[in-house]
């Protein structure tokens, strides 16, 4: 029997940790708070060290907190990050997504900066500012930067935040043995999807949606060991999923995996979600990295990177590219399905007058593969950082209870 309006909007009969109010995906105010209380407080991945291998190489990065950054390797090989904003009139300094610049010169009025963020030239400075402005008064704003956990470049715009090491804790220990060799990015593309960034991270945090993927059903779900994979939650909202042996040959047309990944069992698969929107995904012969950058409550840009080993021979690299593309490329079998899934959620939760009111995270299967504990773990961290319950972000339940008691 279907439900009427009152039944549809009723809170689920689960503990409050087992569902969320869909306004956490649609509300503009909550999104702005997420930028301030989450993204501007945590470490996020800006790029990979292999994208800036030489002195003065740079990448620009749109930080999910809203800032535009420059990530640059200095003349001392150290990687630093700066706001991509000229202190003079607020113009963008570097326009291209990547390049090499011994000096960064703003095209607007030709102020120049070096790779360490110092202002090194103000055009006609003496004539205009006399002795009222020194170069050191207008250096760039540097952002905390660290390189690690597979050679990724991490940034944190909060000068007071705990270190990257404290933020990650033991969450990446399962992957650590497989990230000892230098890696290199060979694939990069972005997808802009009208959906909330957390819905993408949710998809990376649960495997129940393998029902959507023919490839995963045939090579994983129908194979021994699939239901033994377990979620493990770590401090700060991170979570991992244990490995199993994927039977790639069960998919018609799937070629023998020739190359693999050093130390990883054939068919092995390790997935680790880093709060609030990054995912390490190691399977076959490729490490995939997703980074979600929200543009609004219902719009996200997701960066997809595929990485191999820096020492790859040309043939090994081609094998990795083939493995990557078969499921994860823009024309791959799985990525399109995953994006189609969150695109559909974005349609159903398109604004604050959404058709959907609650999303269930209530599956309990001893934290094995179809348990939704990974998402519960995430939203516990989200609630703690936001000072709001994900199941009741505006405290209406407690207010209603209070009113009922008073009456």
């Amino acid at each position, binding site marked *: 029997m279907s439900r009427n309006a009152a039944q549809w909007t009723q809170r689920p009969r689960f503990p409050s940790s087992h569902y969320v109010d869909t306004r956490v995906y649609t509300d503009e105010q909550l999104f702005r708070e997420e930028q301030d209380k989450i993204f501007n407080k945590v470490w996020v991945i800006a790029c990979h060290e292999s*994208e800036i291998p030489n002195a003065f190489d740079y*990448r620009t990065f749109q930080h999910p907190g809203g800032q535009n950054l420059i990530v640059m390797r200095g003349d001392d090989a150290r990687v630093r990050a700066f706001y991509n904003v000229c202190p003079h009139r607020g113009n963008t300094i570097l326009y*291209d*997504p*990547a390049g090499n610049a011994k000096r960064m010169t703003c095209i607007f009025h030709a102020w120049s900066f070096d790779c360490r963020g110092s202002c090194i030239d103000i055009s006609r400075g003496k004539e205009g500012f006399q002795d009222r402005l020194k170069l050191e008064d207008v250096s760039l704003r540097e952002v905390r930067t660290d390189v690690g956990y597979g050679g990724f470049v991490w940034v944190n715009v909060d000068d007071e935040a705990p270190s990257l090491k404290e933020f990650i804790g033991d969450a990446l220990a399962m992957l650590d043995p497989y990230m000892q060799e230098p890696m290199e*990015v*060979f*694939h*990069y*593309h*972005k*997808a*802009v*999807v009208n959906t909330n960034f957390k819905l993408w991270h949710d998809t990376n945090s649960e495997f129940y949606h393998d029902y*959507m*993927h*023919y*490839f995963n059903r045939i090579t994983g779900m129908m194979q021994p060991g699939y239901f033994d994979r377990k979620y493990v939650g770590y401090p700060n909202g991170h979570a991992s999923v244990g490995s199993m042996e994927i039977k790639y040959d069960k*998919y*018609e*047309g799937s070629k023998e995996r020739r190359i693999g990944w050093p130390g990883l069992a054939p068919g092995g698969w390790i997935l680790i979600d880093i709060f609030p929107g990054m995912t390490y995904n190691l399977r076959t012969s490729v490490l995939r990295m997703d980074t979600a950058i929200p543009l609004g409550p219902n719009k996200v840009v997701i960066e997809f990177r595929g990485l191999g080993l820096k020492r790859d021979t040309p043939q090994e690299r*081609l094998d990795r*590219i*083939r493995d990557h*593309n078969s499921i994860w*490329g*823009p*024309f*791959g*079998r799985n*990525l*399109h*399905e995953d*994006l*189609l*899934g969150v*695109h559909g959620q974005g349609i159903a939760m398109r604004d604050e007058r959404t058709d959907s009111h609650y999303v269930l995270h209530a599956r309990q299967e001893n934290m094995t593969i179809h348990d939704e504990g990974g998402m519960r773990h995430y939203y516990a961290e989200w609630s703690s950082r936001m000072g709001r319950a994900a199941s009741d972000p505006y405290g209406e339940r407690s207010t209603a209870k209070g009113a009922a008691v008073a009456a």
Partner: protein
Amino acid sequence: MNPRAAIEQLVYRSCLLLDERNFNGYLGLCDPEFRYSITAHSPEIRKDMIWLDHDKAEMQTLFNNLPRHNSDHSPLTRHATVYTVDIDEAKGEASVVSALQVFKTALDGGTTELFGVGKMYDSVRLNGAGPKLLRRTIKLDTRMLGIGYHIPF
């Protein structure tokens, strides 16, 4: 029909057949040694990328598996313009460069958006009954394909 006209017909028919999802018809235009690739250059990582690379049998498998997958059903419309045809009579092959635009039309309401832009670099085998596609490399300028697509261009 002169060779250039026959080659242009081959390119245009390949677009029409894929638009119609007539995959067997499309593969019928291809030489047994056919190879298909989609590539793009990433200014972000400053590298050329391969996004798809299949021989004829792999293309057949890709098409066979389509009904088993969940896919965006919005139809695509491919628009090609053959720019240059260079015929190597001694080799019995032609090199063809075409501009390609791909449009996507939403099923609900029929809004059409430009989905992708690039160029098609075809090698065409001229021996035998008629021209056949020997190799097709699509170099995409567009790298933002939204939720992606399961059917090649």
